[in-house]
């Protein structure tokens, strides 16, 4: 494994050099919050950020995305025949992504790249992207990533993992894509492998010691779907929920989407837009029948999906990476950590 030392004095130049080949994305400060956005020329990623309000999933999976177009003009020969739009799959790099966001991408991939179907929009964007992660030296109070199978220095899903060492970065190059990016920046000071591995280990242990928030997930697998589904705690737990889409939209592992057709004069476009299982319309049939007509059913669905259905279906842990965004942003403070612990410890009364 290769390790590269990057003096922070060389950082800006290196990033600008890579712009020749990559479209760059990274954390950007906007008013008082950070967002993962496209980096305009001469804008560097804000590596000092703690967490972004929205996850990095919008780099691969934008909130509004065109998929197909068709002309409705009947004088054209190909009228009403849908075509895939041109997508831009030139290389991109996300710099400063947190390890939990990169792990989340791998969980999203389970949905968009299956044996039977491959979503070209998501998959092509994912394959064009190099993930340059930044380890979290001081995890924030909402970070419970070590309970979910990732952690502040986990390299799962990353192409490069950077450790911030005050005056320099130590880069752990994990894949060929990562090596290509580091090369494009011109960062070539190789660090000693053994020392670097040891240093990363120390940093990881320090950071994980600072994780103040934990959840219990060990008993979720052994419970049956129906016993959790029919448990009595859902009514009062869902009382305060206002069924907005905040939790689903800030979450890095939520993927539900809607498909809408929009028409402007004679051009039609088929869009994919984020959707939320919290919306009453989500499961409403055209006849008006709605299997999840009540708020309790919808709140229960979200947590059952994240903490049980996904776990049973893919056997890769829960559908949560512990980033804490939903905990911070939920308007009514419904806390997935609390819900998980309630579900995990629930024993059905005989």
């Amino acid at each position: 494994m290769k390790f590269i030392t990057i003096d922070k004095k060389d950082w800006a130049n290196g990033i600008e050099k890579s712009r020749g080949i990559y479209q760059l994305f990274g954390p950007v400060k906007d008013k008082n919050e950070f967002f993962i956005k496209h980096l305009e020329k001469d804008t560097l990623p804000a590596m000092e950020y703690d967490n972004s309000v929205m996850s990095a999933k919008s780099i691969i999976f934008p909130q509004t995305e065109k998929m197909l177009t068709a002309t409705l003009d009947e004088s054209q020969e190909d009228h009403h025949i849908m075509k895939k739009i041109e997508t831009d799959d030139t290389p991109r790099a996300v710099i400063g992504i947190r390890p939990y966001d990169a792990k989340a991408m791998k969980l999203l991939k389970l949905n968009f790249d299956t044996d039977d179907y491959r979503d070209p929009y998501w998959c092509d964007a994912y394959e064009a992207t190099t993930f340059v992660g930044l380890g979290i030296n001081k995890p924030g109070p909402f970070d419970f990533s070590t309970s979910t199978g990732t952690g502040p220095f986990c390299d799962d899903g990353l192409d490069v993992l950077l450790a911030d060492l005050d005056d320099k970065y130590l880069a752990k190059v994990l894949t060929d894509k990562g090596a290509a990016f580091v090369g494009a920046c011109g960062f070539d000071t190789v660090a000693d492998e053994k020392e670097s591995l040891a240093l990363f280990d120390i940093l990881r242990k320090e950071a994980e010691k600072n994780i103040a928030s934990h959840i219990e997930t060990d008993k979720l697998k052994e419970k049956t779907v129906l016993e959790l589904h029919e448990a009595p705690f859902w009514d009062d737990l869902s009382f305060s929920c206002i069924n907005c889409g905040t939790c689903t939209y800030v979450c890095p592992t939520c993927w539900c989407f809607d498909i809408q057709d929009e028409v402007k004069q004679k051009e039609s476009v088929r869009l994919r837009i984020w959707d939320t299982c919290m919306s009453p319309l989500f499961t409403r049939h055209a006849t008006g029948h709605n299997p999840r007509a009540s708020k309790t059913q919808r709140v229960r669905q979200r947590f059952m999906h994240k903490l049980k259905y996904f776990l049973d279906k893919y056997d890769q842990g829960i559908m949560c990476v512990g980033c804490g965004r939903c905990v911070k942003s939920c308007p009514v403070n419904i806390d997935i950590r609390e819900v998980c612990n309630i579900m995990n410890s629930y024993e059905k009364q005989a």
Partner: protein
Amino acid sequence: MENPYLPYPVRIDDIEIATEDKSLKTFKFVFLNKEDEEKFSYQAGQFAELSIPGVGEIPIGIASSPVEKGFVKFTVFRTGVVTSHLHNMKVGDIMGIRGPLGNWYPWDKLENKNVVIIGGGFAFTTLRSSIIYMLDPANRNKFKNIDVVYGARSPGMLLYREELFEWEKREDINMHITVDGTDDPNWKYHTGFVPTIVEQNAPKADEDTYAIICGPPIMIKFTQPALTQLGYKEHQIIMSLENRMKCGIGMCGRCNIGKELVCKDGPVFTLEQINQTPKEY
């Protein structure tokens, strides 16, 4: 792999009004590109997304049978934005079809078995596909007895009436056609709700008999106990479910019941599988 969101272009070749109140129409589509028809090879029980550019898509069960070549047929109920638009379209109009999607009735498991088909109202579409498949000379001797119970509100609401009456005359299939009620004095067949007719006419269960049910939730609710009475076990009752869908390929996440996605792990499930999931459909 192909782009699963891209529909095959089709032309409307024929439109038939399927019921007396005109709320259902049967559309016959022909693929614009011959090779798309081969790519669309399907099994009885599957569905497809009918795709109208600028309007939207709807998941509809395939009513034509795999043994019918050169076209595909769908019977569509007018109820919302896309179905209303479709009902106003004309022969010759161009639109798209995505599919075939979903799983199909377990034809391999049903070989050498007696099959009881129970349908109600507009849900008979994939059952038509199944019956024509089974009655085809190449397939008929793969199956033992075939019984069909199909009911609608009135004679004019039965789908595929001419074909039903033709099948009724055949020796190799037992048809039990019923209506909820009628003032037609010439009505030759049963009168009564589907669950009652099932109770009275369906064969008793044994190891070699399977029932396929497709119908509105209320019909299924009352037919299930009738089948259980006749001895059908949970794994012998096969159901085709419906749910709101968008992508049809198991990615948009909205059609789930528990961890099963109706568009991909279904729409065909056994009662045994359904009883292990929350009833959110």
